[in-house]
């Protein structure tokens, strides 16, 4: 049985090494897709090359850095608590930190609403922001599974693919519109989640990682080979874009168009801005939905199960169902992101849904702080923007990226925002806020 956790005890040397080893291990995992593997141009075609020595150096740097930082931090904290104790401070208040997080959250929402207006003449910025939001959506979906429920899902990209192909096929084969296909495709992804989660979640924790990893690969193999359904490696083309209440974003023609209806001059930028707002709305809805759920017993049970499964069972929770609900919700949100991705690109192929993609989404959740909604946004920004920024000075790109990763891993191995926000407040007269 596990020992109780005492927050204020100083760690032993063995614990410090263990902590640094854990950090190095996570760094190793995260580093595989981003540092260990790289694509090089070889006679016009891209091939994957490995850089294991870089990866080893990366992990070693994280190990040493963490050890040093943790030691100095602990020394500082110990001095500070000793001072506070002497001064008679008793309770640790978290209210201040949570107000800051919610302020940052609102500023971020306001900023993202205004972004296309501020950058109205810069399509590249709006387009990149759309990419960031797709990863935010994927990250929030996986965050429920990994960050909140503590289940290791290594194949989240599979549900992304299911959503994307579901929309692609529903629209090109059956003529469904974006808005009707969206909920159906989300349900199809959720159904895949049930089929996968139902058997594997009854088994011990680590099986889910293997099953999801396998599923991610199987989906890709199936999509590559079931040519009659999926078009094989060529993928699905001419996927219809979402419309604005039936108004298409096209040059003036026979059908009513957005520009024509509002008496504007046609501009391809309209569609880019519209797509941006579509994913923004989907993200905001997701955030409200997940945040609400976390306040209900079912949502809080996800975190409880992650913390102590046996205690949960003894409290009468059906642990399998709790995990399944988190897993299926994650699958569904992954599907929604997939639908949007297909509609935005207009073209999808199995190449968009590789293990690399799963690893990046996982990195977003881990770097974001396992469970923090805002952390996922920050991590998505970092992981999407860093490579973009680095593009201008390609030689230093790896260096930039690696340094940023090392700093994050050492400074915040629990993620950028590892402080969990309480979701239930107590008002002294017994009411609830």
């Amino acid at each position: 049985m596990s020992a109780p956790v005492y927050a204020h005890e100083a760690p032993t040397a063995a614990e410090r090494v263990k902590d640094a080893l854990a950090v190095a291990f996570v760094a190793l995992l995260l580093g595989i897709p981003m540092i260990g593997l790289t694509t090089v141009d070889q006679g016009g075609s891209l091939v994957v090359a490995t850089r294991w020595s870089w990866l080893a150096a990366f992990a070693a740097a994280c190990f040493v850095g963490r050890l040093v930082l943790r030691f100095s931090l602990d020394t500082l904290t110990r001095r500070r608590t000793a001072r506070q104790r002497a001064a008679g401070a008793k309770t640790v208040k978290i209210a201040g930190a949570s107000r800051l997080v919610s302020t940052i959250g609102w500023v971020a929402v306001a900023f993202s609403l205004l972004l296309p207006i501020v950058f109205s003449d810069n399509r590249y910025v709006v387009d990149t922001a759309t990419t960031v939001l797709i990863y935010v959506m994927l990250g929030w979906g996986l965050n429920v599974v990994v960050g909140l429920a503590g289940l290791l899902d290594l194949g989240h990209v599979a549900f992304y693919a299911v959503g994307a192909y579901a929309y692609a096929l529903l629209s090109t084969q059956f003529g469904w519109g974006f808005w009707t296909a969206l909920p159906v495709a989300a349900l199809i992804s959720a159904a895949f989640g049930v089929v996968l989660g139902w058997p594997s979640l009854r088994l011990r924790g680590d099986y889910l990682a293997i099953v999801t990893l396998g599923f991610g690969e199987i989906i890709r193999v199936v999509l590559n080979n079931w040519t009659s359904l999926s078009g094989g490696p060529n993928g699905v083309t001419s996927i219809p874009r979402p419309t604005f209440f039936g108004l298409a974003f096209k040059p003036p023609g026979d059908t009513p168009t957005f520009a024509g209806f509002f008496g504007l001059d046609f501009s391809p930028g309209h569609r880019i801005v519209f797509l941006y707002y579509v994913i923004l709305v989907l993200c905001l809805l997701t955030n409200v939905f997940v945040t609400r759920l976390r306040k209900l017993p079912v949502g809080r049970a996800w975190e409880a199960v992650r913390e102590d499964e046996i205690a949960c069972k003894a409290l009468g929770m059906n642990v399998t169902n709790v995990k399944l609900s988190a897993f299926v919700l994650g699958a569904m949100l992954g599907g929604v992101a997939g639908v949007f991705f297909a509609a935005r690109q207009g073209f999808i192929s199995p190449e968009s849904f590789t293990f690399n993609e799963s690893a990046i989404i996982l990195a977003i959740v881990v770097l974001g702080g396992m469970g923090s909604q805002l952390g996922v946004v920050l991590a998505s920004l970092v992981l999407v923007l860093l490579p973009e920024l680095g593009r201008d000075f390609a030689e230093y790109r790896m260096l930039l990226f690696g340094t940023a990763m090392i700093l994050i891993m050492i400074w915040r191995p629990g993620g950028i925002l590892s402080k969990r926000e309480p979701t239930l407040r107590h008002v002294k007269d017994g009411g609830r806020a």
Partner: protein
Amino acid sequence: MMLQMSGVHAHYGHIHALQGVDVSVQVGEVVTLIGANGAGKSTLLMSLFGQPRASAGRIIFDGEDITRLQTHDISRRGISLVPEGRRIFPRMTVMENLQMGAVLADPANLHVDLKRMFALFPILEERCEQRAGTLSGGEQQMLAIARALMSRPKLLLLDEPSLGLAPLYIKKIFQTIRELNRDHGMTILLIEQNAHHALRAAHRGYVLQHGQIILSGTGKELLASPEVRAAYLEGGHGAAGK
């Protein structure tokens, strides 16, 4: 009869941890089970929940055979456990821990029950927004007890609630156990190494050794019995009980 375990065996792989135990608890009783480290006390409690599942024997709770039920279904019948080592959710706040204890209860009762818990343990109200992992050991134990009570159980199981606590908290915990039983009619099965305190708080007691019940009787009888005195009170683990 609230609980009746008859001839219960339990195994961990090839370790035969429970070797045919008979334990019963009447409605309104405090029953204690004492024994040295590794005697199988925790195993006995957990086997009530099917973790591990009894490999032989029968467990009847409130007139129903629960031997083969799923763990979560067993707690739904009205058994609540305060596990060894407390097992509170350290990253969640005190309030959230309490809410998790009430997942089975009617949500309409949440406020009333919270008030009852805060009356029982005023310190929890003071700490309600604090992360449970930052509480002291004694406070964590109170939280674990309060969390278990939030589901309004018929039978409360406590696994070594005094383990590792300062004397002041030990006193408070045993006081609470008496109070729960006397004022609220709670039926309690209490596991302890602290034989002195436990036997004084209990109506009846059992002594467990190597997975077998070797003695049973009223709390007074066991306190006076030479075997118990020799093994658990004088120089034994219970000696800390003063």
